[in-house]
């Protein structure tokens, strides 16, 4: 009986091994373990085995069953695996074929820079506000302490609509609107378009600025310098270097101009930065107390500072845009590069 069992096992394993598909494997299973199967027959006829051998033969038979079942399972899995990999091989695609569906467009680089800058400012506690682009002489000049005889107030430099209404030449008009409408302390930032009577190869009559203004008790030049340091690092990376030059703006005193490592050449010196390795990014300064007073803020109690970058140039430099006119030409060959 033992020999018989061993023969069954041997035959079964051989056949299983020879099976090429699931169907023949199932046939083997039926032959051995099915109702009419060889092993089933033995188990069914246990009664004919002498009492003393029954236990041994029983466990032997169960062992054979287990081994056959395991072999069937294993072979089945391997056959399935083989079939799957075969069918997958047939489904193989040329991965270099073009994708299907809508191809993403792009934001204008000015918008991207704007958003980055606003994010930085908002995170530092600034509120983004916007205001009129067509404004009165008062908001654009007078209330910003720009003297009556300043060249900017001549028709030649600004685009006027009437004697008293013009297209703002600077987002600084928003300083005045903010100071009139908000109660200190506040921090605001105003992105927007500004207009000049200027149109040549290196100037656009319309360009973009930011105006940031902080009014509070106890703010001064130190806060401005520390804040700008953080902003520059977030804008251009931790390695950016900053250089300060005293400057003149009628609405700030002291006034400074802030240069940062030229982003075109990373400070190596190029034609854009005239070899200095630095390019101008912000005008800034402590708000002139006259300006605070004109807008009804007590300059004895409050002080403030403002800064405003002209962003078109920064956008050009950070994106290596060769010509300022690209920014408003809307040529797809340019826009597509901004994806």
């Amino acid at each position, binding site marked *: 009986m033992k020999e018989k069992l061993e023969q069954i096992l041997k035959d079964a394993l051989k056949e299983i091994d020879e099976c090429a598909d699931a169907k023949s494997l199932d046939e083997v299973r039926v032959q051995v373990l099915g109702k009419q199967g060889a092993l089933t027959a033995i188990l069914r006829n246990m009664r004919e085995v002498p009492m003393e051998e029954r236990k041994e033969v029983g466990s032997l038979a169960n062992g054979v069953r287990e081994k056959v079942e395991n072999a069937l399972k294993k072979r089945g899995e391997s056959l399935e695996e083989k079939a799957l990999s075969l069918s997958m091989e047939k489904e193989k695609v040329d991965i270099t074929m073009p994708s299907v569906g*809508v191809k*993403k*467009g*792009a*934001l*204008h680089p000015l*918008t991207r820079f704007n958003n980055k800058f606003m994010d930085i400012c*908002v995170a530092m*506690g*600034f*509120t983004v506000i*916007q205001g*009129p*682009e*067509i404004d*009165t002489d008062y908001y654009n000049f007078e209330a910003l302490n720009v003297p009556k*005889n*300043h*060249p900017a107030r001549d028709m*030649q430099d600004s*685009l*006027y*609509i*009437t004697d008293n*209404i013009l*297209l703002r030449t600077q987002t600084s008009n928003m300083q005045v609107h903010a100071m009139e409408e908000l109660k200190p302390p506040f*921090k605001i930032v105003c992105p927007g378009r500004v*207009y000049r*009577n200027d*149109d040549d190869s290196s100037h656009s*009559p*319309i360009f973009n600025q930011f105006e940031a203004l*902080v009014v*509070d*008790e*106890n*703010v*001064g*030049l*130190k*806060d*401005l310098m520390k*804040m700008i340091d*953080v902003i520059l690092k977030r804008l251009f990376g931790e390695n950016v270097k900053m250089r*300060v*030059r*005293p*400057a*003149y703006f009628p609405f700030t*005193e*002291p*006034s400074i101009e802030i240069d940062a490592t030229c982003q075109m050449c990373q400070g190596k010196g190029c034609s854009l930065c005239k070899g200095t390795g630095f390019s101008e990014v912000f005008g800034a300064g*402590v708000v002139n*107390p006259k300006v605070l007073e004109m807008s009804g803020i007590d300059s004895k109690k409050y002080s403030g500072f403002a800064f405003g970058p002209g962003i078109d140039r920064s956008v050009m430099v950070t994106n290596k845009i060769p010509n300022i006119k690209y920014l*408003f*030409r*809307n*040529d*797809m*060959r340019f826009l597509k590069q901004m994806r």
Partner: protein
Amino acid sequence: MKVSYNWLKDFVDIDVSPEVLASKLTVSGFEVEEITYQNEHLHDVYVGKITKMEKHKDADKLQVCTVDVGDKVVQIITSATNVFEGAVVPVSLEGADLCNGVKIKPTNFRGVKSDGMFCSGEELGIDENYIEGGGVNGILILPESMKIGEKIEDALMLNDVVFDINVTPNRPDCNSVIGIAREISALYNLPLKEVDYSYKTCGEDVNNFVSVEVQTKKCPRYMASYIKDLNLTRSPLYFRARLFASGIKPINTIVDITNYVLLEQGQPMHAFDYEHLAGKKIVVRDAKKGEKISVLNGNTYELDENDMVIADAERPVVIAGVIGGVNSCVTPSTKATVFECAVFDLKSVRLTSRKIGVSTDSSLRYSKGVYVNTPINALKRALHLVDELGAGKIVDGIIDKYSVITRQRSFTEPMSKVDKILGIKIERERVLQILNSLGLNATLTNDTLRVNPPFYREDIECANDIAEELIRIYGYDVYNNLEGEAFENSTVTVGAYEPRLVFENTLKNQLVDYGFYETLNYSLYSATACEKLLINDERKNVIKIANPISEELSTVRTVMAHALLLDIKFNLSVGNKNLKFFEAGRVYQPKALPLTELPMENNRLSIAVCEEGYDFFMLKNVMENLLISTSLKYKLVRSTEPYLHSGVSADIIAGDGKKVGYFGKIHPKVLKNYDISHDVYYAELDTDYLSSLKEKTYAVKEVSKFAEVERDIAVVVDEEVTNGELTFAIKSACGKLFAGVELFDIYRSASLGENKKSLAYKIHLLNEEKTMTADEINAVVKKVLKSLEFRYKAKLRA
């Protein structure tokens, strides 16, 4: 402004290199934009004397010269015809790299060696104005008195370094050598040397020779003096060198003196030919309309009441502050002169200068501002120079007509306030030293800082000004390594975006995902824009720019579409295809014209598509998806936009009846006006309105336990029947069981009949309480069909 390094050294003993000085000036507020070394192309050139000349044996036109260059004797071969034995000439030797790019090395001329070359004035970068013979077409023959062997840059005083300095508008006092010298003295804490203002006179009285009458308010001061027995020669070389380095052409002693004072003191001057001053009278007045004057640049200008002139008894002789007339200028035959040393209104000079397109050293300085007290020392300085150069005899007395008196100012500020502005505390001793070196005469008593600014520092008015003076001299570097953070002593504020920007950015990003590109266009456009867009409503009332740059930029936009259509036109013209653009921008609608109050500025998001196969419904899908995230309840109606195709466009109407946007195909006539030969789809949204809506809120209903069932129907209707009408009817007929309906097919064919179409719908049904039976479903479908037939004569398609 060009400033000579050597000139600065007249006033301050500078002991740093030009580069160091330049960077120090830059960080203190006087940006040095360029440093020029006069001797850059003058090395290896010496003063030499031709001791012997003989003809080259093999070349007729060449001369072999033996030349003494001090420490050695060299041989130079020349073809120049103006040299002679004994001539003192500039000799360039090996290594020289001349102004015209010629590099010198020893050469062989037909077997005879030449160690270098004689130089012309041009090769040394100078001309006849600078030195006699400097402009001749040949070799520069130098004065015999020159020291043989001396470097040419020293011999000709071309060893200066010139700084091009950008002076800010608040510091007109620094449009002068003396002004910059004062800054340097403060920067390095070096004493400022005394300037010699002394001169001697020859008696008589200026008032016997000339009178001055000021008839305009635009001339707060006019000073004049009279010099006779003029000696109009070339000025001395050192004098010419100063002018030359500063970019001014030397002419003769008197003219040079006026220019010297202009550069040194920042005070423009004029010298009249006394003989040609009719009536021996100077009248400062506004020009008469139509008055003409011929001036030194060779042109004649017509003036009006806004211009100011200096006139004699008969005619204008100078355009005040700008340029002198030919009728009274100093010429070689001038015997006596009147010096003008005046102050003119800066705006008047600037406007006249701009109007006639003439910018001079004088007009530039007047435009930036000359102080009422500046002429006092300046005129003295000019007279001193007349004396020094022996240019003439100075008659006693100075005429001084002034209408403004400058008083010594003095004010106090708490020093603690200055500290607060700076955020740092500068040592008190250093504070006083800086302020006093700037001439501010400061004292500090406890916390009280008193300053007495000189007349030329009108810009110093308050603590902020003092803070600026201190920190720009002390150095902004101090902040680099300062401990602490920004806003340590101030209030915490919470940042936020303007809601419209947040909304706009959401839409922008969505559009980018749909394959759109953002454009930016000028908000100014041509006055013809509305006409091209067939617009005949209030948007026609565009704001006009009073002084436009060009017709294309002459009005402020009331419509976004114009620029986007031009963008499409441009892109098609350069071969770009599949154009999908959007732009967020403003339109500016006046309340009334001409403008008396500020116009309304409204924010718009516009979309333009020119793409093969694009259609109305693709754009509709974009619009629906943009609006789904808002709380807007809207309906679509046929659009009334004049520039859209009336049959293929829709207006988006909000619940309150306001039109908040529109979209559709561009009108064929408009396309023609823009010369675009492809279909263009366009949309616009009022982002001010949409971002002002309250945020969309959600109230979720329980999800049904039972599954939806679907049934398809296809009905044949007349063409006029709309999908909207049919789906509304289906919804109504389904009642509570309605769970959705989708149009999935449209079919037209001759067999359906003329003017007929077949629409196929998938109807979704759901009973919240139980699974629907087939009978129930069939009953609903039947009801739907009956309703469609009753309302729209719809027939079930076989």
